[in-house]
């Protein structure tokens, strides 16, 4: 392992340890409110990861991922409130609804690329946003759907559900971590490499025998899975679903988080999302124009760190290790393939 990779591994392990310790650490140091902020960051990171999968790994910029987030939300809310489903089937319904929607819209959307693709994804999300607003009997319109949480696990008289804040946080962490792990495996897999090839050069990819359309569609449905899972978690977390989360503004935020954090890196979306949500939570109580900070940071990053904050961190790390002579010998002694973690 190279020195930068070793340093990154240490940082990752520390970060993972921190995330697991949050339900005990944060209330002791600050106050329990921040635990739910962190849970929210995890959920929105997963949503940003769906933008990242398409933009960073397939080269498709979607401004409509909120549609699948919304379907994840409504799948859970309608499952529980209208159909009376228990916890797990409702969660499954949310994810499945999002993936089905991604498949149906993807069949049309991935025929296009670049700005045409961006536009068609916005159009699809607007269509369903207005449909959700007007079909009050199903979606509750502007008010949304409020529901009572069924227990996650029930064994005889023993029940465990998201009403327990510690369990809620750990449940969200576990689901989000699982999704990021799956995405990591995907990127390293033959399918993942095929997606990278399409991102780099789609004409060439088709000439070497890759079915570009089908692979883009698969990626689109997988991105729908990530966004839908995030939406389902968010519905369970807030105990409600609302059409407002399907608006393209929500999609756009995830694009900004991803680009600032670092598109094409696994953890970029987490970094970007964390920064923006923390800024919002800390500054918005003091200053109503906190979005100016968001805009300023986004512009600075795009100009000075086009590979995002994670890309910037890697460049700095590589430059620092380059300067030390002992680092060079460490690299020479142990040549290894640099993989994107």
């Amino acid at each position, binding site marked *: 392992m190279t020195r930068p990779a070793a340093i990154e591994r240490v940082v990752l392990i520390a970060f993972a340890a921190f995330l697991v310790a949050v339900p005990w650490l944060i209330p002791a140091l600050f106050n329990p409110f921040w635990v739910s902020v962190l849970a929210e960051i995890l959920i929105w990171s997963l949503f940003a990861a769906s933008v990242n999968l398409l933009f960073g790994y397939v080269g498709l910029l979607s401004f409509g991922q909120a549609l699948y987030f919304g379907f994840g939300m409504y799948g859970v809310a309608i499952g529980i409130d209208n159909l009376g489903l228990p916890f797990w089937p409702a969660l499954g319904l949310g994810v499945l609804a999002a993936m089905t929607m991604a498949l149906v819209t993807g069949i049309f959307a991935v025929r296009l690329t670049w700005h045409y693709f961006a536009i068609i994804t916005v159009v699809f999300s607007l269509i369903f946003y207005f449909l959700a607003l007007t079909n009050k009997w199903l979606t509750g319109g502007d008010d949304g759907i409020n529901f009572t949480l069924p227990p996650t696990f029930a064994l005889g008289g023993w029940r465990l559900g998201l009403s327990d804040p510690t369990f809620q946080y750990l449940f969200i962490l576990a689901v989000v971590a699982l999704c990021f792990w799956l995405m990591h*495996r995907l990127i390293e897999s033959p399918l993942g490499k095929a997606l990278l090839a399409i991102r780099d050069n789609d004409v060439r990819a088709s000439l070497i025998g890759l079915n570009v359309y089908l692979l883009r569609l698969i990626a689109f449905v997988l991105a729908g899975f990530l966004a839908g899972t995030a939406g389902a978690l968010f519905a369970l977390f807030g105990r409600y679903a609302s059409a407002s989360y399907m608006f393209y503004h929500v999609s756009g935020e995830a694009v900004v988080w991803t680009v600032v954090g670092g598109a094409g890196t696994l953890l970029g979306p987490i970094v970007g999302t964390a920064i923006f949500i923390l800024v919002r939570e800390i500054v918005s109580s003091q200053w109503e124009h906190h979005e100016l900070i968001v805009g300023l940071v986004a512009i600075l990053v795009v100009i000075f760190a086009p590979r995002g904050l994670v890309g910037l961190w890697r460049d700095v790390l590589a430059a620092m290790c380059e300067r030390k002579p002992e680092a060079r010998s460490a690299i020479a002694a142990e040549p290894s393939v640099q993989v994107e973690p």
Partner: protein
Amino acid sequence: MSDPILRIEGLTKRFGGLTAVDNLGYTLTGGRLHAIIGPNGAGKTTLFNLISGLLAPDAGRILFAGRDITGLKPHAISRLGVKRTLQIKSVFPRLNVADNLWITAQAERRFLHPFRAAARDRGIAEKVERTLERIGLAELAQRPAGTLSYGDVALLEIGMALIAEPRLLLLDEPTCGMSPAETDRAVEVIRALAQSIDIVIIEHDMEVVFEIAADITVMAQGAILASGTPQEIAADERVREAYLGRPEDEDYVEEAAHA
């Protein structure tokens, strides 16, 4: 097998008022390195685009080893064993050299495993190693392809064509923009490839064409003007008029023909 490796009948492609390829017929029997030459705008690259499926013809048929491939998608044609390089050098710039070869070697698989580590596939890993040795890029295996020199990118492209084990290889100006040393190296690799693969090459460098081609076809204005051995082409009056008529080129051809 009696079918020729490539057979083209009445192929026509129009762009608005311009007929880029005009009722073209062409048969490639195979076993020989075949070159296509012609002035700019003769329709050579359009012909390659039609064969590889990037463009759909307005009329005519293309048969690959007896099988009609007219109108198939590029990836489907590629999977049958027809590979090509592009005139503008075209690789996957953000992937490293080894991954460029790796993705090419596994691209034809119907099932791309979504979650197993790609690095674990030993068979493909060995193929990548062998190809890196053969094209002489083993040292640069971990470099992003976008950072390679022009000549190395061209070699990588040939390596990508090689690792895919094609039955028919279409090379579009493979030595365009190369230094003389790089050209020599590329010519050597192409010659070696021609031992086992049928190759059609579009080339502007007359020296290269007359050095490596067993057959030459001359295209002009979307149709075939002449076909034959390098000696026959060099002696052909019509070719001289249409394409090689300028004095400096004539010297070139005579020089090459007598070489």
